[in-house]
């Protein structure tokens, strides 16, 4: 049995085969999503929370996902592979493609994702897009499909290092997609807490609810994708204690997909116009979000400012 496992782990793997697995996984996540969504809607009915705003919000999540797909799949897919393949010529090590190395690549990609995610929360221009994902006041699996216009762009620079150390560009692409797919099922209120060792090691629905919280103590916490340990190591972890208030500190109060999809860029534009002088404008783009609001003394409506990134 053991030798079979080892045999399988180290048997050569074709990148085309891996892409097939990714497509397979993607399809099944869709199926699971629909099942989850039905469960969640039934639960909303049971606890008497189902209303038209919620239904509208759920639909909006899928519409933003559709718009996101339109933007990214058409233009970015080619860009990903082009960028990764281009940089692979500078790779410092040669890494074979087999499940063992794919597994290591997933762990490394998870760490890259941690930084990408932290970046999208702490840099104005990136937050302008990622805020879309966070702007839902609810937490169900459809929120996982709520994306902003630029969300497909940030993974590229953050994952190029993986190609540079020698991982196959297609494997990096797979690993990155896997880290994303894993998180889909974390968007739920149905699962409370999992056994302690799992909660210690893995990102779980509980940890991810915290990440979606607008509560002061939950803001900019739990960035991790698959393994929550990155947050524990880098001091951005928070345990789910108080009930989570989902959404952003300056609520949208809209289920209009267009408003939802572009509100981040719109708000960034507003702040950019308001900012005094080029230094301040630059700060709006690259600094942590919500600073001008803090300065104009509306702290309740802002995200925490302070230390950068």
């Amino acid at each position: 049995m053991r030798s079979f496992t080892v045999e399988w782990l180290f048997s050569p793997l074709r990148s085309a085969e891996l892409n097939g697995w990714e497509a397979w996984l993607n399809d099944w996540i869709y199926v699971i999503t629909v099942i989850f969504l039905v469960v969640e809607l039934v639960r909303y009915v049971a606890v008497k929370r189902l209303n038209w705003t919620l239904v509208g919000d759920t639909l909006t999540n899928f519409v933003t996902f559709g718009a996101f797909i339109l933007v990214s799949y058409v233009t970015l897919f080619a860009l990903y592979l082009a960028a990764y393949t281009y940089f692979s010529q500078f790779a410092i090590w040669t890494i074979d493609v087999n499940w063992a190395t794919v597994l290591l690549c997933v762990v490394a990609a998870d760490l890259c994702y941690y930084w990408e995610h932290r970046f999208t929360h702490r840099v104005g221009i990136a937050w302008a897009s990622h805020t879309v994902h966070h702007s839902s006041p609810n937490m169900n699996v459809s929120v996982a499909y709520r994306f902003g216009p630029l969300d497909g762009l940030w993974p590229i620079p953050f994952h190029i290092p993986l190609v540079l150390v020698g991982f196959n560009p297609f494997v990096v692409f797979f690993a990155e997609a896997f880290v994303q797919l894993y998180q889909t099922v974390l968007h739920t209120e149905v699962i409370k807490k999992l056994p302690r060792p799992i909660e210690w090691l893995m990102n779980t629905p509980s940890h991810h609810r915290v990440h979606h919280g607008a509560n002061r103590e939950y803001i900019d916490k739990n960035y991790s994708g698959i393994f929550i340990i990155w947050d524990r190591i880098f001091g951005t972890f928070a345990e789910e204690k108080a009930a989570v208030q989902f959404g952003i500190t300056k609520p949208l109060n809209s289920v209009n997909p267009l408003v939802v999809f572009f509100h981040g860029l719109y708000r960034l534009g507003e702040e950019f116009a308001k900012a005094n002088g080029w230094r301040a404008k630059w700060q709006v783009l690259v600094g942590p979000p919500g600073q001008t609001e803090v300065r104009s003394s509306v702290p309740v409506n802002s995200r925490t400012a302070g230390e950068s990134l």
Partner: protein
Amino acid sequence: MKPVSHLGISLIVSLLIISGLAYGASQLSSHAESDSANLPDAVGVSDHGGDTEVQGLEIIVLGIRGDQGKVVAAVFNDKEAFEAYDYDRSIRYGEFKANKAVKGAVRLPFPRLRSGGPYAISLFHDENNDDDFNYEGDYPTEGWGTSGAKDMWDEPTFEEASVTGGRVIVQMYYAD
């Protein structure tokens, strides 16, 4: 354990972790491809040469799909012919039926081909038996394989595809 909260140190720690994982991965090499001695030989591939000083060329073709049509294989020692897919100007040419026996892996032995080369190998799976490699728009509708190709869409030049002899593994790709 106290978390690392300094941004710069956090980033350095991350780069070290990633380098560690990648170095580890670089040590985990795949098992050698299946033992060629156990592979079936392609029927109909003849080694018609008459070179005296030989060490031979052995092509292992992986991933032939299904059992329709035939697989066409050619070995080139000419850059122009290779890059023009001019199979008539190949130094070795062979066709064999795609069937269950060759599905996983098949061996094309050319023991009388003089070692040294350079040789570039090109194959395609002529599923509809029309002696042509078919496309639909830009996408090939039949399988193909080239020595030295890193992945499906890699089109190696003659230099990149060249081998000097011995055992060469060629992976077949199908776009649909």
